[in-house]
């Protein structure tokens, strides 16, 4: 059936096919993608097989797999697993907290909608580092939160809030929440209210209407949100340094240290980066495939 439709359209709609000049318009995008995505990744891949230069950089000549053996070292594996754990937890909390917010904004009256959207985006007007330092002021032992709790008599001594794993998660969720809300909002905005009404009319309770109608229809937003939060949350390390006291290393710390830290081991940093890139690629492929299978395509 699909084929029939295509051949029918081919006769009538050949003028709708982009012509050569139309394809030329794609050129800037292709060049951009090549210069800033393909080329750097290729350099990273090549570097990951080279030997360490004396003053950083790489030593050309011998190809080696040694750097990838290093990735499998228990310490680094542990750090990768922990980083994935933090990123996963952050993504989960962002989804749980962000979905209702995105839904409310998306279903709100047009007048309110823009105002609420603005409220989500206002933090972006301030530098991310300044906002993260603001959390130091809130969480430190003589900070805003402890002062508040002490003055209300809820606690007798200041709580240990800053420089804890909890502080890192708070900082990560705070940083990435808008990246979850915005894509889900665009999905919710397009949601046809009649479909929800139909589900309710046909006997679905609110829970079922939500899980069988609303969630599937907003899945593109959810997937985009998960990607937009999980991927950068895995690589970020400034939050960990500022709010976690740098006590546990994230994979981002390790890679940074190979390039411009004491280790001066670019090939190993490149190997870690390549390993991450490939695991992302595989995870993305698997998730995408599953989704397509689930949707029967």
């Amino acid at each position, binding site marked *: 059936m699909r084929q029939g439709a295509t051949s029918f359209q081919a006769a009538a709609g050949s003028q709708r096919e982009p012509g050569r000049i139309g394809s030329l318009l794609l050129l800037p995008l292709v060049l951009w993608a090549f210069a800033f995505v393909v080329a750097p990744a290729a350099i990273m891949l090549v570097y990951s097989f080279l030997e360490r230069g004396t003053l950083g*950089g790489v030593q050309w000549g011998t190809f080696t797999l040694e750097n990838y053996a290093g990735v499998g070292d228990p310490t680094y594996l542990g750090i990768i697993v922990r980083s994935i754990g933090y990123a996963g937890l952050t993504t989960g909390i962002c989804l749980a907290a962000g979905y209702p917010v995105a839904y409310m904004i998306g279903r709100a009256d047009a007048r309110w909608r823009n105002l609420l959207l603005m409220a989500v985006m206002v933090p972006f007007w301030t530098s991310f580092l300044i906002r993260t330092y603001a959390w130091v002021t809130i969480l430190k*032992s003589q900070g805003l939160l402890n002062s508040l709790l002490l003055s209300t008599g809820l606690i007798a001594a200041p709580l240990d809030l800053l420089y804890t794993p909890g502080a890192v998660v708070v900082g990560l969720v705070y940083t990435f929440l808008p990246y979850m809300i915005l894509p889900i909002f665009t999905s919710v905005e397009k949601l046809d209210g009649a479909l929800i009404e139909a589900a309710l009319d046909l006997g679905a309770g609110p829970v079922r209407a939500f899980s069988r109608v609303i969630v599937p229809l907003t899945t593109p937003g959810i997937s985009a949100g998960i990607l937009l939060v999980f991927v950068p949350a895995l690589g970020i390390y400034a939050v960990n340094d500022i709010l976690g006291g740098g006590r546990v290393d994230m994979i981002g710390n390790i890679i940074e240290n190979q390039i411009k*830290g004491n280790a001066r081991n670019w090939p190993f940093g490149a190997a870690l980066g390549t390993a991450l890139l490939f695991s992302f690629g595989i995870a993305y492929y698997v998730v995408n495939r599953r989704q397509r299978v689930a949707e029967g395509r």
Partner: protein
Amino acid sequence: MQRISWRTPMAVLALAMLASCSGEEKAADRAGEAVAEAPEAGGELNLFAWSEYLPQSVIDDFQTETGIRVNYESYASNEEMLAKLTTGAVAYDLVQPSEYTVEAMVKEGMLVPLDKAQIPNLKNIGPEYYGLVHDPELTYSVPYMQGTVGIIVNTERIKEPVASFADVFSAKHKGKIVVLDDSREVVSWALASLGIDVNDVDSENLEKVKPVLAAWLPLVKVYDSDSPKTALTNGDVDLGIVWSGEGAILLNENPGKFTYTLPTDGAHMFIDSLAIPTTVQNAAAAHKFIDYILRPEVSVKISADFPYTNPNVEARKLLSPAELANAASYPPGNPKLSTFTDIGKAAADVDKLFTDMKAQSGS
């Protein structure tokens, strides 16, 4: 060594734009190179120096006086500087490496010898800065500022004396310690506490360091090389091991509250120098800038903003009694100090050890 790590990614874009702007003008500058050899320097100076180390007013005054335009770019670690210098994207005229990096750069032939005839103010540098391993005759480098890594204690919270590394890493200080997030530094403290030369980082010595770090690191609350004073100021920790410049600022801002002492085991003395890399385009301007920095009245301005130890003897005479009395800037007595030497590829082993021990202590 790494002092201001995460701020840099944000600056990278700005730097890239700067670099692309100055690139074009440099082509024109190169054409007039023959003229620039004369003492009347003119033209431009591509300066690549530590962030938070050089007051903007000093650069402005130099530009006004000489007519040389200074393109100032900053870095946060020696390794970052080396990385950018070796790419050759920008032809830097002047860099500011620490002592072990000077040594490595000389070894690799990345620095040009200074023309001392063009630096008459070199006479102001104290005699104690000669004869050091990295550049004994100051052939390639001129000390800019010197510092130490020492023990800072909040005396309102900690009453008993803290003299050695072992005193800092005592079980009763668990969760109250800030240290530099720097593998070479932390490993050197463990070596010093064992009485081993801090530059002797062979695998046998690193093995001896392991149990020491295994005992120390679980006690640490914060690792911070960028601004270790923050956790102390906020009262989240009570003591720590920090750069002397950070210590000096804490002493100045909280009179009587903090003490800064050098560990009795021996302390790291670092020397950040000005040096001319082989990428130099305007050597005359580079020499002129070094000589300008060495003027006593200019040097005291740097000390006022960044209270490290000033290696300029004439400048020290112009410092206020309060500045000279700061125990972090000018440690009293005759402490045991050692500089870092270039340890080459062993740096990766030191780093791995630190990462391992940190991973085991955390969780």
